[in-house]
């Protein structure tokens, strides 16, 4: 791995200690939650719909943010300057909209229909006895989720390798092992509580690091002046093409279709509390995003040319800056925040994939009309997690190219297929099963095709045309088939 020298850290025992203590805490939460999660499948996959507003707020936003936010956005702000803000504005506004207008309705309807997964909801909502909606949505979810989980594990392996000079395979094994232990034991409850802790860890790192670096540099105004002298367009928020602007804003269209975000809304104990969750989640989203952007900007002021960064890689700015500006204990926190971003996404996606296998395929397709004991379903869920982890691990090690090819359009594919279908199912009474089916298929296909055709990809991010065409298809086909509903 060319990144091995990146943040070749001279560790002191404090950094290592804070790191180990953090992981022991995560595993302890998994053990603590095991008894509650073993009660039944709703407890295991949805926390028994008893999650509190603070946990739901933070776990919903953090599971949607992978290392892309802290490494990718800070790197983007380093290269393109202030105009990188548009990459975060879209999803923050969409997730605010989801919390305020969508989450409560989804929570209430899924409880009334006794649905614990998104395919569950689509099937019961349209009384689809053929099972076609469930099969198609499970297929889409499983492919993208397993690829997603494998990519997170691979990212964890690389981060361990770069931080601790640990062999890549060991890094993957360690990331996987920690996630596996607390997810398999504690299910949704543990994952949500741990996501909340990860969210707090991430926000601390993303507030402390830019604050310290900017103060050491001489202040905010001095940073802006330095950037202005370096390249004035770094300070221009509109220094981007119309296609890039729309593409950045459109990233947010992925949120309504990513099931690992949606299930968080379904898990809250009292839907009336979602308005408070909206404020908490939005504050977190905003502080995290602008923290990453400030890191990029101060990084550029401190290291004006990319060659000054390790490996000349802008995505290494975050740990590099932390290594040079923070106390070893706080540097440990920064490193932990990278793993927090990776793990908080991987655990949520893993749980969604396992619920698709056990709830959707086993319980509702294979053993349809058979009453199964809850304990057995929980046991199978744990086995499913183990099997999915092994599959993701094998894919991460042996088929890395395939994984990253799939992940390239996982966010967009899920967003464009499930997003319009779910929004219209919730808000438009004329939506039919065939309309939803058409939307699922169209959304996925357009994302893949648009991404693969170079000419189209250069115009705008594939999620945007795919989302709106998928939405149009749901409407058109629903109107054509309304009598068969």
């Amino acid at each position, binding site marked *: 791995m060319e990144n091995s020298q990146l943040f070749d850290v001279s560790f002191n025992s404090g950094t290592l200690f804070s790191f180990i203590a953090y992981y022991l805490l995560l595993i302890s939460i998994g053990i603590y939650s095991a008894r509650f999660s073993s009660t039944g499948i709703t407890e295991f996959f949805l926390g028994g719909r008893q999650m509190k507003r603070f946990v739901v707020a933070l776990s919903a936003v953090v599971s949607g943010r992978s290392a892309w936010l802290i490494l990718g956005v800070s790197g983007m702000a380093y290269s393109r300057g*202030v105009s990188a803000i548009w990459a975060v*504005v879209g999803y923050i506004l969409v997730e*605010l909209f989801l919390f305020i207008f969508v989450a*409560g309705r989804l929570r209430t309807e899924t409880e009334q229909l006794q649905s614990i997964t998104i395919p569950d909801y689509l099937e019961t909502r349209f009384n689809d006895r053929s099972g076609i909606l469930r099969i198609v949505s499970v297929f889409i979810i499983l492919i993208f989720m397993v690829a997603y989980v494998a990519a997170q594990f691979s990212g964890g392996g690389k981060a361990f390798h770069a931080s601790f000079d640990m062999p890549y395979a060991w890094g993957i094994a360690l990331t996987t092992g920690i996630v596996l232990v607390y997810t398999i034991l504690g299910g949704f409850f543990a994952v949500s509580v741990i996501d909340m802790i990860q969210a707090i860890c991430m926000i601390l790192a993303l507030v402390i690091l830019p604050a310290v670096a900017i103060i050491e540099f001489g202040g905010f105004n001095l940073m802006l002046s330095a950037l202005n002298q370096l390249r004035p367009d770094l300070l221009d928020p509109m220094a981007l093409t119309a296609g890039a602007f729309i593409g950045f804003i459109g990233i947010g269209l992925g949120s309504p279709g990513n099931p690992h975000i949606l299930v968080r809304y379904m898990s809250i104990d009292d839907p009336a509390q979602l308005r*408070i969750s909206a*404020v908490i989640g939005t*504050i977190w989203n905003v502080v995290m995003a602008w923290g990453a952007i400030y890191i990029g900007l101060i990084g550029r002021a401190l290291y004006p040319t990319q060659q000054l960064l390790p490996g000349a890689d802008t995505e290494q700015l975050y740990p590099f800056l932390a290594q040079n500006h923070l106390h070893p204990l706080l540097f440990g926190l920064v490193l932990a925040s990278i793993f927090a971003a990776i793990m908080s996404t991987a655990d949520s996606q893993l749980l969604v994939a396992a619920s698709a296998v056990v709830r959707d395929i086993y319980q509702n397709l294979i053993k349809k009309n058979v009453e199964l004991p809850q304990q057995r379903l929980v046991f199978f869920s744990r086995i499913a997690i183990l099997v999915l982890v092994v599959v993701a691990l094998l894919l991460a090690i042996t088929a890395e190219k395939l994984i990253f090819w799939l992940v390239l359009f996982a966010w967009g594919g899920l967003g464009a297929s499930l997003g319009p279908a779910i929004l219209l199912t919730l808000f438009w009474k004329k939506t039919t099963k065939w309309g939803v089916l058409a939307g699922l298929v169209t959304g996925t296909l357009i994302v893949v095709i648009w991404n693969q055709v170079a000419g189209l990809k250069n115009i705008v991010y594939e999620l945007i045309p795919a989302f709106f065409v998928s939405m149009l298809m749901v409407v058109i086909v629903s109107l054509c088939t309304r009598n068969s509903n």
Partner: protein
Amino acid sequence: MVGLISPWIALMGIPVCIIFLAIILAIFTKKQR
């Protein structure tokens, strides 16, 4: 300094406005059922 107004809005104004919007929506939207 004129050129610095717009980055100030992007770096300070927009995040504050989004948080303010969240608070306004939370207060004035109907309770979700």
